[in-house]
């Protein structure tokens, strides 16, 4: 009796996951009180973390979880579909959201006026809704709708930055992001045209039989362009440095860890579960495009990061480079490479959001994040700065940090696919990371603090979230098997490719 009750609840989880934050956002608006809104948002976010963890468990034990919205069977109705990979992404999104949100009361007042906070939390929740919705959607058009929810709210969040340049950055982001969304829509249209279905599983089944490589190639290109913009793959990701630089640090921490990750997932899903390796890579040779793009992103991102004088911007460019690593994993299209890409998704989310929260603490105390501002801060904010160093080491990929795990698999993947040069390039670009991280470390520890600057350590409300994330990079660096196992299962799922079988709607 009780078992069936639990099973029933479990089958409802995908819907709860998305709908709960969606419905809470208006309540936040109604509450109008900063504190109350935060408490509510926090509860919901933690709830969705719990939900996603439950789903991950379920998926690992029993396989895919499907929820039919409104009770209409796919492909006619909309399906929510949770598999290993997106359950993992859901955990990342809701987990990082919880931690970042818990830091909000500490860092937000400096950057956003108090009486707007409730709206901030509403926008935050909506953004999360969009991201969770995109991830769990089993219908491509639905992906587009939720992409727009998350995009619109993230434009708003970016525009909240304290300097007026945040507005410019947000506008840019809006233009580029909408273009991306529209390209995605176009690609989806072409796919629909060729198959007549929108359901992801169904698309995968039917697409194999479709003739017409030219249209398929262009459709794939449209989808890739659309997702790459949101994913911030160079050169389509050039909106990102400004957006992350001028947005409130809190928002940068949130977006860096979640928005790009979800887009990555969408891209992976299109490439592997809808098109499939044999179609996308063997027939359409898409890896010839993806691999160079990833490599260029890795190097350009890191190189530009080296010359930045603002820490936020430095981290933003480093994000471009890290996205390159992840996409490289996709382009390698073998087990190790994909595992590396997926595990880096998680690891990068941890370290980047941790690092941006460190900057949130710096903004809180100093009001600025230029290199000359953080001089000698190692003595005045020892815990915060130590977190920065650990996070930086993880970016470099020093062993026993999470970054090492990802790099291990990526290099392995490159070697397995018979591309030792790519393996060498991966490590070569890590060297660039050493340079940009060490520039900061030198300023922090080996420059005297400016005369008369009195700075206190960051408040506990920020330190705890920071160390949760940064500590996470160490924990998952030491117990890398935990994440790598999940990632490997997800990689296997991707490599299996689109399902084979009769189309869901019967043959036409």
């Amino acid at each position, binding site marked *: 009796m009780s078992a069936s009750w639990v099973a029933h609840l479990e089958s409802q989880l995908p819907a709860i996951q998305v709908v709960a934050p969606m419905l809470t956002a208006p309540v936040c608006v109604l509450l109008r009180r900063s504190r109350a809104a935060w408490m509510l948002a926090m509860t919901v976010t933690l709830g969705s973390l719990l939900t996603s963890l439950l789903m991950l468990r379920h998926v690992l034990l029993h396989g895919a979880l499907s929820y039919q919205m409104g009770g209409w069977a796919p492909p006619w109705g909309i399906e929510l579909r949770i598999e290993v990979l997106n359950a993992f992404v859901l955990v990342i999104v809701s987990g990082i959201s919880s931690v970042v949100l818990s830091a909000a009361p500490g860092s937000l007042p400096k950057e956003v*006026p108090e009486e707007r906070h409730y709206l901030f939390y509403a926008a935050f929740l909506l953004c999360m*809704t969009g991201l969770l919705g995109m991830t769990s959607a089993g219908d491509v058009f639905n992906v587009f709708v939720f992409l727009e929810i998350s995009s*619109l709210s993230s434009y708003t969040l970016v525009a909240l930055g304290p300097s007026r340049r945040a507005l410019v950055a947000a506008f840019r982001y809006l233009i580029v992001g909408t273009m991306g969304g529209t390209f995605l829509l176009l690609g989806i249209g072409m796919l629909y045209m060729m198959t007549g279905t929108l359901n992801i599983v169904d698309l995968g089944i039917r697409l194999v039989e479709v003739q017409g490589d030219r249209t398929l190639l262009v459709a794939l290109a449209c989808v890739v362009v659309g997702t790459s913009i949101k994913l911030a793959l160079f050169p389509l990701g050039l909106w990102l440095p400004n957006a992350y630089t001028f947005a409130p640090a809190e928002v940068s921490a949130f977006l860096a860890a979640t928005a790009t990750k979800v887009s990555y997932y969408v891209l992976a899903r299109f490439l592997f579960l809808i098109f499939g390796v044999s179609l996308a890579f063997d027939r359409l040779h898409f890896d010839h495009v993806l691999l160079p793009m990833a490599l260029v992103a890795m190097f350009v991102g890191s190189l530009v990061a080296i010359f930045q004088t603002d820490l936020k911007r430095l981290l933003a460019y480093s994000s471009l480079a890290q996205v390159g690593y992840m996409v490289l994993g996709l382009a390698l299209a073998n087990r190790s490479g994909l595992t590396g890409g997926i595990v880096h998704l998680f690891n990068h989310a941890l370290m980047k959001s941790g690092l941006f929260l460190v900057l949130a603490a710096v903004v809180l105390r100093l009001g600025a994040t230029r290199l000359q501002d953080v001089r000698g801060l190692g003595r005045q904010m020892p815990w915060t700065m130590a977190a920065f160093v650990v996070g930086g080491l993880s970016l470099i990929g020093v062993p026993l940090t999470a970054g090492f795990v990802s790099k291990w698999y990526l290099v392995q993947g490159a070697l397995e696919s018979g591309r030792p040069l790519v393996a060498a390039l991966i490590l070569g670009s890590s060297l660039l990371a050493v340079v940009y991280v060490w520039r900061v470390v030198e300023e922090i520890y080996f420059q005297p603090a400016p005369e008369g600057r009195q700075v206190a350590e960051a408040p506990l409300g920020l330190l705890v979230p920071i160390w949760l994330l940064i500590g996470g990079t160490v924990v998952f660096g030491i117990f890398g098997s935990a994440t790598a196992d999940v990632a490997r299962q997800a990689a296997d799922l991707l490599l299996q490719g689109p399902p084979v079988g009769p189309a869901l709607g019967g043959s036409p």
Partner: protein
Amino acid sequence: MAVTLAIIRMRDLFAAVMLSGIFSLLSAGLFTVMDAVDVAFTEAAVGAGISTVLMVATLSLTRRRERDRRLDRRPEDVLGLVVALLTGAILIYGTLDMPYYGDPEAPANLYMVPRFLEDSLDEVGPPNIVTSILASYRGYDTFGEATVVFTAAIGAFLLLGGAARRRRQTSSSDSDPSSEGAPPADRGAEA
């Protein structure tokens, strides 16, 4: 299409906005021709109506004329043209394997549609199939759509809300006097 070209050339933004409204109306007409009456209604109401109103409102808050910049050409112009042409070429290349316009045998028209046509009247009710699908089969999308609107509303509210704006304005004018007014050249254009 002629209308769109006119929009580009037009420096009077008000006229451009009006033309974009007309453009929306024309597309609505086209939609009707292609049997998409619901879409045509919406496009006419939203595209030609609401968005025009919003744009005009924005213009009233900002300025009406685009700056004359026929003289200074930027490298972006060439780049933009090249990118647009290239993208267009790629997309046209992609159409080569598409089913022809109006082809009743196209997969899109054969796969899910029959069931909607046959069963929606019994399963859902309304004679308008579009309404049936919108409200039931794809109700979740509609739900998402409502959220999009809500999101935009919150965004606009956050951006344009009174208190925050005033505070920010004062603080930014402290730091940068140029934010108070436009360069003199533009003042003239505004009149």
